[in-house]
Structure formats: C-alpha cells, structure tokens
C-alpha cells in the first residue's frame, strides 16, 4: 500500500535535507537538516516494513535513539563553541584551517 509514493516522498525529503546542509551556515539549522534526513530514512524503513515484517519499525526505533543521542552531544558541542566564538556561524569556526 502506497509503497512507491512513500519511497519517492522519502527521496524528496532527504534531498531537501542535503540541500539545507549545503546552503546554510548556521550550525543549529544544519543539525535540523540532518534530523530531516534521518526522518526521510525512517519513512523508507516504515514503508518497507509493511512487506518485510516489523524489523523495519524496530530499526526506526534505534534510529530515533541515535538521533536523540546525536542531538544532545551535538548541541553541547555547539554550546561550547558558542562560548569561545560568540557565534554559531560555520564560517567563524575555522580553528583547524591551516
């Protein structure tokens, strides 16, 4: 049921996330685009779990857990960088540039 349209929607949402990562400079918005990409992948899992059994839905469960952990650690890093630079603009975070 609705397998093809779901996969197409997932592709479109993933692409929107990739474009967001490329065009934005704000580190927090970048993280939100990554969340959007993870959501797109979750949609693929759910759509295919209709035909391959419930393992797909359990994978979504794990993806959500990893996303939560990633968001917590990533936002802590952004917070630490903000204390140093007073900015979350990726152009300002260039300490490792040679």
């Amino acid at each position, binding site marked *: *049921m*609705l397998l*093809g*349209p*779901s*996969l*197409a929607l997932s*592709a*479109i*949402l993933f692409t*929107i*996330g*990739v*474009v*967001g990562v*490329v*065009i*934005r*400079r*704000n580190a*927090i*918005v970048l993280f*939100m*685009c990554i*969340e*959007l990409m993870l*959501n797109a992948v979750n*949609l693929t899992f*759910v*759509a295919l*779990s*209709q*035909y*391959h*059994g*419930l*393992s797909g*839905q*359990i994978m*979504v*469960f*794990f993806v*959500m*857990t*990893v*996303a*939560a*952990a*990633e*968001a*917590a*650690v990533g*936002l*802590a*890093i952004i*917070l630490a960088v*903000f*204390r140093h630079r007073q*900015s979350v*603009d990726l152009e300002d975070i260039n300490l490792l540039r040679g």
Partner: protein
Amino acid sequence: MTEIVFYILAVAAVVSGIACIVQRNPVSAALWLVAAMFALAGIYVLLNAQFIGAIQVLVYAGAIMVLFLFVIMLLNLGREANDIRRWPALLAGVAIAAGIVAPLLALRLYSPTRLATEVSGSPVFGDPGTVLSQGAAAQRLAENQGVVGAIAGPLFQTYLVPFEVTSILLLVAAIGAVVLAKRRL
C-alpha cells in the same frame, strides 16, 4: 481515501521541509521542522505503523525539537544577518539536489509485485502474498496482540542485545553532553 490523505500529508511534509531550510530565523526553521515531523507521523499511521507515529510525535517533535528550541533561545540566536550562502554554494546545492533526486525518484514506480520479484530473484513475476509473507504475518500479529505488543515481541527477543547497547549509547551521550557543556570540570 487513504491516498488522498497521504498526498495531503506528503505535500505538507515537503512544503514544511523546504520552509525549514529557507527560513532565516532559526526558531521558525525549527517550528517548520516540527510541522514536517507531524506530517510524517500522520504518514506513519497511514502505513500501519501507529506506534512509530506516536513515538515520532513524542520523541522527535516533543523531546528532540524542544532541545533544539531550548538551545536556540539559550544562545539568543535569530538576530544575525542572513546565513544562507551566496550563489556558488547555492548553485552547488541545486546541482546536488538534482543529482540525488533524479535517480531516487525512480523509486516512485516501486510496487509490491516488483519488490517480490526482486526479493525472490526469479525471472517471472513474484507473488507478493507468498514471497513477502512476513508483512501479512506482521499484520495478523498486530491484530492479535495489539500494535505495541507486535513491536515489543521482536524488540525484546530478536533485538534484545542492540536494545541494551542503545541504553549504553544514551548513557554515554548524557555524560558526554554534561562534560562538553560544563564550563570547567
């Protein structure tokens, strides 16, 4: 009927996603992302994954996005100049989008019959009912044990070890976040 609701939610998800990446203010970007996640939760319910839909609203839209909004407001962002990159990166974005979406959009032609044919590996058309019997079995399980019961079975039996490893991951993430965000140890 299901298809109409699906397409309404799909359009809502795509529009919210696009609004999320072009919105200048981080707070409105976050709220548009919440809208996209709500639309996706509705789609999960349509795809017979009611539990995942509920978790999507509770964990993603409820917990993770609140964390994002909390950090945005804590750092008092949103008054900077436009952070959308100028034309070279913008052009690269469009090129990447075209390069990714063109091959992936071929997936819209996927049907259960084609999936069954590819899974079985036989040259003739596979019958979705026999090749992909796990899907129908999961459907029956959900009817017998309830939606949550059907997921709890494999989660705490087949996937017990990954589930326990997940708890370690969350513990590490919690400790790591505290260590990183602390001013001085």
